[in-house]
């Protein structure tokens, strides 16, 4: 079922929950298609982010961008299991989640540029970038805002499955950082999902820092997954620098959620290669060069590529061709964004409310 030709933007996306189930219920050996799919999603995120970071620092893209560089394996490993009917909630670091969920570069760059052709018609920008049609319920400027919203989406999924007499449910996946698990909102969401056995998979992107504060100073545990026990749900840890490890852990949890087994907390140990905001950041030295180098050596993309070459899944030339195609798409998309119309200030008040139906 994978790799249908009608996939958007060159990314093979399963078209409905059933496809995703078929996919995730495969044995925990990723197929060649899955390996290539993981790769493509990661490469798309990496190049998208590097170019976006440059645009921000050249002053072309307004506002502040929180980049996902280094964490690509997490979004990609999870998203391979999801269809457009499954929802995710994202964070301030949200571009990677949208790219992995099939986001189109044109609409994404246009949004970062504040253009009418962007996903949010320029109203939201980086911190609110969304694609509700594909189940991407938005990046978010409020830390830990996502988990409760995902619980609501999962409630809806369970409710609708019951109304429609389906056994298999769509799944909601909130992504959030280590820092976010110190907000009450996270805990309230985890508890509600657990007592109601909702189809939620909580995915913690533990990159070791909340802004500039190391995890050891913001919480007294080193494994966020430990928090799952307090809510009566499984807590799983996986290597967030390894797309296959994430794919495995997420696959199992998503499968369980889909079939009514309730929520899981999946903690992915990862690292952001650039600063909290932008590429260069504000020049604070809160991480050592050694630590950065150690994690960079585990860069999820070369790691995955090397493995694919060794397994004979892709040749170095084929891999290069993927990068080239993604870069070509980016160049074209940035041009599209730059040439797109700005929003008309006369429409400033549109979309504050949904029009009330005439009675």
């Amino acid at each position, binding site marked *: 079922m994978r790799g249908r030709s009608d996939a958007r933007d060159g990314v093979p996306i399963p078209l409905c929950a059933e496809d995703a189930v078929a996919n995730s219920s495969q044995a925990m050996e990723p197929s060649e298609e899955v390996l290539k799919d993981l790769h493509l999603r990661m490469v798309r995120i990496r190049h998208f982010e590097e170019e976006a970071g440059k645009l921000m620092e050249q002053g072309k893209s*307004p*506002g*502040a961008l929180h980049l996902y560089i280094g964490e690509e394996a997490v979004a990609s490993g999870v998203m391979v299991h999801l269809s457009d009917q499954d929802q995710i909630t994202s964070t301030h670091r949200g571009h990677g989640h949208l790219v992995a969920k099939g986001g189109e570069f044109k609409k994404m760059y246009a949004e970062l540029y*504040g*253009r009418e052709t962007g996903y*949010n018609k*320029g*109203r*939201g*920008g*980086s*911190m*609110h970038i969304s694609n509700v049609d594909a189940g991407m319920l938005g990046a*978010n*400027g*409020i*830390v*830990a805002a996502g988990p409760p919203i995902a619980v609501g989406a999962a409630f809806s999924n369970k409710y609708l499955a019951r109304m429609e007499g389906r056994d298999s449910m769509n799944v909601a996946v909130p992504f959030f950082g280590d*820092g*976010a698990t*110190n*907000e*009450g*909102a996270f805990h309230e969401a985890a508890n509600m999902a657990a007592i109601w056995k909702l189809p939620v998979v909580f995915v913690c992107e533990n990159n070791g820092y*909340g*802004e*500039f*504060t190391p995890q050891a*100073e*913001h*919480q007294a545990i080193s494994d966020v997954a430990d928090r799952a026990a307090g809510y009566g749900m499984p807590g799983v840890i996986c290597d967030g620098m390894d797309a296959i490890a994430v794919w495995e852990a997420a696959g199992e949890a998503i499968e369980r959620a889909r079939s009514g087994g309730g929520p899981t907390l999946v903690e992915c140990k990862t690292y952001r290669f650039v600063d909290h905001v932008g590429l260069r950041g*504000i020049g*604070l030295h*809160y991480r050592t060069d050694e630590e950065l180098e150690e994690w960079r050596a585990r860069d999820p993309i070369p790691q995955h590529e090397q493995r694919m070459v060794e397994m004979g899944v892709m040749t170095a030339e084929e891999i290069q061709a993927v990068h080239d195609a993604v870069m070509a798409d980016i160049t074209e998309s940035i041009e599209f964004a730059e040439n797109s119309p*700005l*929003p008309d*200030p006369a429409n*400033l*008040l549109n979309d*504050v409310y949904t029009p009330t139906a005439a009675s």
Partner: protein
Amino acid sequence: MTAAEAPAGRQLVYTLAITEGVRQALQEEPLAFMAGEDVAGAGSVFGIYRGLLDEFGPDRVIDTPISESGIIGLAVGAGATGLKPIVDIMFMDFIGECMDEIVNQLAKMRYMFGGKATLPVTVLTMSGAGMNLAAQHSQSLEAWLCHTPGLKVVMPATAYDVKGAIITAAREPNPVFVVMCKGLMALPGEVPEEPYTLPIGKANVLREGDNLTVVAHGRMIHEATKAADILEGEGISVEVIDPLWLQPLDTDTIINSVSKTHNALVVHEAVRFGGVGAEIAAQIAELAFDYLDAPVGRVAAPFSPVPFSPVLEQTYVPNAERIAAEARRILGTG
């Protein structure tokens, strides 16, 4: 002492005036401590608290988890039991996370307990749009706070006022929100080196004039002053008042001014509907109705979230041109 009376002397940018205010508040009061997200190691996102950790150590300058409700709760509990908390809620938009602690605990504890508790709490936070940070990092929510009995609210928009506001708040036995302007971080101004306070509930008359009173607060005081310059070129003499304290509000200064100029325009960056300007306009209508030559005007943000796209945000945030245009309309000269 107002900015106008401050001795000519040392210039400091707004960010450094903030740092100095907190530093002196901590120096003069051993029971005072500062806590907030990334305030210690990083000195917060715009570096406004840089150096305080080194000077006062980790027992008094404390990085908290990302837990706004916990931060205000910490201030309530520590304040009620003898300490003098100075806490930071980075961006004002994040007060949504801790509104219960603010509205139902911090503001009301003293009254509910029959005056038996004292809450000497300072909350520092940044407001305002103009940096393309979109709907959840650009708001001016001061009206929420002013609507809550038990809180005091000051919105300093000069380097002088921000330092004075912080020291005043830190010495005050009541909860005070110091709402700082994130768009003014690089603004220089004269700032005396010694600690000083601002009179609570006293407005600044930034400029005297005869034909129109413009009451503006926060970052809008600078736009109002620019508008006054423009209007002066047209022969219109404008008095610009910065209430500075929105709670308690200096009604007298505003009313006296309107009694003299016979016209009033209220300006703020927050959404117009239900904003602090609505209260000010109502007070003018109640207390100076007989002096008014025209209905009180208001310039403020339209009724929408703050848009991201720069073209929309520029339309959204009031500026000198819009203030001047509204002034002309009120005076019938435009």
